[in-house]
């Protein structure tokens, strides 16, 4: 099952009793959305292929104390509507959840117009939001239910494709922490921090080098988990891996939050290259050839 369907299914469950939910789409669908539209037509609003208007309409709805979801492809929701995002849910601190689908190179081989390789940097610069990047369906479900229970300005970055389950999965009582450690934590070990699809590649590396490496799934990068700051207080070497362009990605986020707390481990960032990708070959091929091969990640973490 796709992350988007998992997310929307939680909304459908809530709509059974909560009619203050509106789901807006900028002409982006999914099998679960078909169900929502059919069953709760009064709560679904088609905004046309108009991400900016969708955000403005969402702002009006949220000002009337509704919980609002805006749903679109990641590159268009994040970059095209960023000023509306700032002026609506940002400036007025509104309970709007942006569901952004197809982060990174998820839409390979559609080309660079459809890649969302800058969305993290853009949304991380907006004040007051929470940013979530799940790596599996279980985390996706927890994120959806967290918003439904406690609505607040959120940016949720979903993958286009189905991702394997994390093992062990993130438990409900661990969700509020915002991250989960894979492997036995030891400050002397080299640490990989990542999120989303690319975390699975990091986890594979960690599994093969458990004695030296620990991996951290940072599914909530903003607000940055306080407990993670404490955990990394005496850490020495960190590699941050992100399927984004070099500027302002998860690596910057980790550095900013640690440095604010006077924590200065050696940090290296492995991301996509500074390039617009026009080549075909599928996502894994592109990851391998544009800066995020498993070999490069392994080499980085070994040589920190």
């Amino acid at each position, binding site marked *: 099952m796709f992350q988007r369907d998992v997310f929307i299914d939680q909304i459908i469950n809530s709509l059974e009793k909560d009619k203050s939910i*509106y789901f807006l789409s900028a002409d982006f669908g999914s099998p679960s959305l078909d169900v929502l539209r059919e069953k709760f037509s*009064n709560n679904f*609003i088609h*905004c*046309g292929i*108009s991400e*900016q*208007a969708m*955000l*403005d*309409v*969402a*702002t*009006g*709805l*949220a*000002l*009337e104390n*509704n919980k609002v979801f805006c749903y679109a492809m990641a590159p268009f929701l994040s970059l095209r509507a960023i*000023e*509306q995002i700032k*002026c*609506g849910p940002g*400036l*007025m601190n509104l309970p709007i959840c942006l569901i952004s689908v197809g982060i990174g190179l998820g839409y390979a081989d559609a080309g660079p117009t459809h890649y969302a390789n800058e969305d993290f940097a853009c949304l991380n610069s907006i004040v007051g939001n929470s940013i979530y990047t799940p790596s599996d369906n279980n985390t996706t479900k927890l994120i959806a239910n967290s918003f439904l229970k406690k609505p607040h300005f959120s940016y949720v970055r979903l993958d286009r494709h189905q991702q394997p389950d994390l093992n062990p999965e993130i438990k409900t009582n661990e969700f509020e922490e915002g991250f989960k450690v894979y492997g036995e934590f030891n400050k002397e070990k080299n640490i990989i921090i990542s999120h989303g699809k690319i975390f699975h590649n990091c986890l594979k590396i960690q599994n093969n080098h458990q004695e030296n490496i620990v991996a951290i799934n940072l599914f909530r990068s903003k607000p940055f988990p306080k407990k993670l700051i404490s955990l990394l207080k005496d850490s020495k070497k960190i590699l941050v891996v992100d399927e984004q362009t070099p500027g302002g990605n998860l690596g910057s986020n980790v550095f900013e939050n640690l440095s604010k707390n006077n924590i200065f481990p050696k940090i290296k960032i492995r991301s996509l290259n500074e390039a617009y990708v026009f080549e075909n070959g599928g996502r894994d091929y592109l990851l391998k050839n544009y800066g995020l091969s498993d070999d490069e990640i392994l080499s980085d973490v070994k040589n920190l």
Partner: protein
Amino acid sequence: MKINDLKEIAKKYRGEMFEKFLLTKQGHPGSIYSIIEIVVALYHGGFVRFNEKDNRFTDKVLISKGHATSALYPILRDFGVISKEQWINWGTKKSPLRIFGNTSIPGIDITSGSLGHCIGAGAGMALHYKKNKIDKKVFVIISEGELYEGSTWEGLLFAKHNKLANLKIIIDINNLIILGTTDECLKLNPIEDKIKGLGIKTKTIDGHDIDQVTNTLYEFQTIDDVSCILANTTKGKGASIMEDKKHWHYWNPMDEEQIKITREDLKK
């Protein structure tokens, strides 16, 4: 309220706002003076309903041209939504009033300033009221300069598609943007044809003629679809030094003679 009373209120507000411009040495007098009759008609003409018990307005007013939101402050003061002290202290740290309105100010329904957002936001509110059979209207005032913003047209399409009879749009057409006339800079005309082309009911009026403003607001109350008033106005209306002058989009320093002339103008 009688039309002559509304005219007197508009005159009074222009004078009061001028004293605030002198005090704060900033603001957007040209844009504020072009909508004074419109906002006076909306509130004091009773189109925006006031709930005395809750001390708040039932209907919403979104000033999309956020640089002119402060035109509402004397109205909010007179309805008691903001206190006299807050009005008097405007320009000091003690008052919540700002050049651009925001939702931290009682009676201001949206934080605006960036152009092109409020038709969409107003449509969102209006659609919520319509779906839930809530008896509330949303008035959105935009400048014609906002017709350059794509999101304005996206919002109009959305409002028309959803037949939002409770959404009343007023376009303040003073023909000036910061660098010159719209005809010189990038032609918008014929605006009416463009709005009508979307299937939206429109009417062009003199935005400084309170008779016309109130009559059209009354007439448009019963239209069962989104509607749009095209209000022809003069930037800086009422102050001869400012009228139809592009540089009076912003406040400019005045010498004593100019201040005297403007004070006299605004009493007429």
